[in-house]
């Protein structure tokens, strides 16, 4: 793709956030699109968001489970960025109308104490850089119609990011078994998914290592204080307005995302 095609793809995605009208998969309209193109399109949007005054607060890794990698026919994760306006408070209603086709995923979020930059980051470096972990519910969303995404579409679309709700109890890494911690996801009181941390690349810490080593060579450092979402422990669950979603983590408590009911005008038939 030439720079004009990249610009217009970035513009189309940015407009979809505003209009709430999803666009066709970029891979339908841009034959020969590459992974470099996709990340360039993501970065164009990031630059625009920063110019508009948003603040970079962290990163997310996704496509970290064997099941989702198989589904998209890839053998590696991808990544996106988290801005300040994507953070929602627990139990504070989230306007579902803010999103196009939101889904929720339970995760264990890392908060960094010191900067981390690859290449050459080991699991020891990653563990040393983590200040604490927080329970998290990530909201993913797609500006691509009906989630008809390839890896290139989701990368261009900021890795299908939407937002996140963080728990409020920091836990030291030494106090959590990242691989075997069990998670139950309840939607409106019904158990909809279960999983264990190791579903994320064998261990969520591996996602942090991968992210640092992937971003480092491109001049990006994971900064102290940054939040890193390492990837979902279960399959993503679609949510509707009015839903309450709770993830319970063995021995660590729970985190809840509350979606606001649909505005009453939409109930008029």
């Amino acid at each position: 793709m030439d720079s004009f095609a990249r610009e217009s793809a970035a513009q189309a995605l940015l407009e979809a956030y505003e209009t709430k009208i999803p666009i066709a998969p970029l891979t339908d309209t841009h034959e020969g699109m590459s992974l470099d193109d996709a990340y360039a399109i993501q970065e164009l949007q990031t630059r625009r968001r920063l110019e508009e005054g948003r603040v970079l607060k962290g990163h997310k890794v996704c496509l970290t489970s064997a099941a989702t990698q198989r589904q998209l026919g890839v053998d590696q994760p991808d990544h996106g960025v988290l801005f300040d306006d994507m953070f929602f408070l627990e139990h504070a209603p989230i306007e579902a109308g803010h999103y196009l086709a939101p889904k929720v995923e339970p995760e264990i979020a890392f908060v960094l104490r010191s900067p981390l930059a690859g290449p050459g980051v080991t699991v020891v470096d990653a563990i040393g850089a983590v200040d604490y972990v927080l329970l998290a519910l990530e909201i993913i969303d797609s500006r691509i119609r009906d989630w008809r995404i390839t890896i290139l579409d989701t990368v261009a679309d900021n890795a299908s990011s939407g937002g996140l709700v963080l728990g409020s109890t920091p836990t030291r890494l030494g106090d959590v078994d990242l691989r075997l911690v069990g998670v139950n996801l309840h939607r409106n009181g019904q158990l909809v998914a279960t999983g264990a941390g190791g579903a994320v690349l064998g261990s969520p810490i591996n996602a942090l290592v991968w992210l640092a080593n992937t971003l480092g060579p491109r001049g990006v450092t994971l900064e102290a204080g940054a939040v890193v979402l390492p990837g979902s422990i279960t399959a993503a669950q679609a949510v509707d307005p009015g839903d309450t979603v709770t993830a319970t983590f063995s021995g660590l408590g729970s985190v809840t995302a509350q979606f606001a009911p649909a505005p009453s005008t939409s109930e008029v038939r």
Partner: protein
Amino acid sequence: MSVDRPQAWDVESVAAELLACEDEVRDRSPFTDDWRELDVATGYRIQDRTLEQRLARGETLVGMKLGLTSRAKQRRMGVDTPFVAWLTDAMVLPAGDPVPQGRLIHPRIEPEIVFVMGRRLQGPGVTVAQAMASVDQVLGGAEIIDSRYRDFAFTAGDVIADNASSGAFVTGPIALSPCNIDLSTEGVLVEVDGAVVDSATAAAVQGHPAEALALAANELASRGRAIEAGWIVLTGGITDAVVARPGSTVWTHFATLGSIYLSGGGEATS
């Protein structure tokens, strides 16, 4: 031999054919193809007949297993309680032994929570709290299921008759009192050849394995039986079963109940 030819089946002949399939390590088509009346109740009569024959040939009853303990799978099969089936000492696999490929048709492995009963549990009307209180020990386990039906294709009546796809089972290294473990969030990770293929918590079993135990006690009561003290109870697969390929290695890791290693056994087929 008239294995797949339509014929008039009854409890006795189906029981004999199922045990013959097991002994000869061969699969077959579901009986309901020819015998539509083979329902859940008839399936249990056949299952009980195969147990009588297992005991008659010298096996010992050591407990029971529950099947279809996920609500989603129950809805798909049109039932609302788990299946129960019998465990004998011939199905016990010593820790460290490989999957006995030679005597199984197409084995699959699933992680389970295992209860050892401390007290007799007699339905009807058994509650979850009473079920929990009757459990002496909780262990992790790996069940090796096998079906006498081709491609694991069957109806509820077929699979119940087939002792709910029983094969073999191995129990894990740690036994805890049920007072000391939150089974609803017990994490489980399944790794095949070093790669994580599935994860879940024991809540995948009917919300809590003791919930499945209570339902099973009440189900058994309708057949005039109780869950006896000392019995082993396999409470049902926590994740989807993984194929036990010859030459592969399968690890089942439990957050607090330890890890179980199973070698796929047999010759590696590339």
